[in-house]
């Protein structure tokens, strides 16, 4: 799986800490999600997508080997 959270964050000129505070998770969790080391739950993925005003499948993209 790959994610475009970093790109979306850059569009809003936002740090990982700021996004983490808004979503309600730790900065390390956002960092892990961006590095594709942690797969968020459905609720968390929906929260992130809602914040960036995009669809979940545009932020989290399945790869061929998933």
């Amino acid at each position, binding site marked *: 799986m790959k994610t475009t959270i970093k790109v979306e964050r850059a569009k809003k000129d936002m740090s990982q800490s700021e996004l*983490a505070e808004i979503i*309600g*998770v*730790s900065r*390390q*969790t956002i960092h*892990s999600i961006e*590095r594709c*080391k*942690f797969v*968020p*739950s459905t609720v*968390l993925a929906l929260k992130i997508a809602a914040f960036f005003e995009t669809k979940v499948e545009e932020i989290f993209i399945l790869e061929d080997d998933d």
Partner: protein
Amino acid sequence: MFSKNNSIDFTPFPMYGYNGKYWGYAITIISLLLYVVKSIFQNFAAIFDAENTVVNEVLLWSIGFGLYTIAFSKEKNDDERVRLIRYQSLRIAMGTMLSFIFAIGITNTFSPMNFENNVFFQMYSSFMMGVVWYLFNFYRGLLFDADFVYSDNTVKVNLIKNKKYFIYGYLIPIALLLIVLLFNWVFA
């Protein structure tokens, strides 16, 4: 105790809040300092001395209790990733502790121990192994090892993918078992 729908609303074995960590650190550090000072005045008396005093044991248990409080306190931001790391760490600590107790138990079967001298060592070492090993793995997963969360391979896959697993998964536990056997043979 009861929620609006009259269902029972309590958490079995609840964690302490984040402030629990401060209490844990305070208890651990104070107990450790007191133990070191006492040991200095007693010329570094052996921890598991047969003449061990009640004060020594209380201080050692206090250190353990402080670490236990730290272990079972929530993080500042206790999100789903932290909960997953906590589950993995508890699983590892529980498995290791059970293996250790099994090792002690089975050596007692073949070489009955003198429990008058060993009961504190058996209890304390089992307790501390669980707590310390949990804390080590929890903070390793939280701060250093991003792949820790999804590391859930079976024994066979571990051996195929990583030959070093044979050393960590088998040789080291066997070495620990032999050390426990030797300890029981020497001090029994």
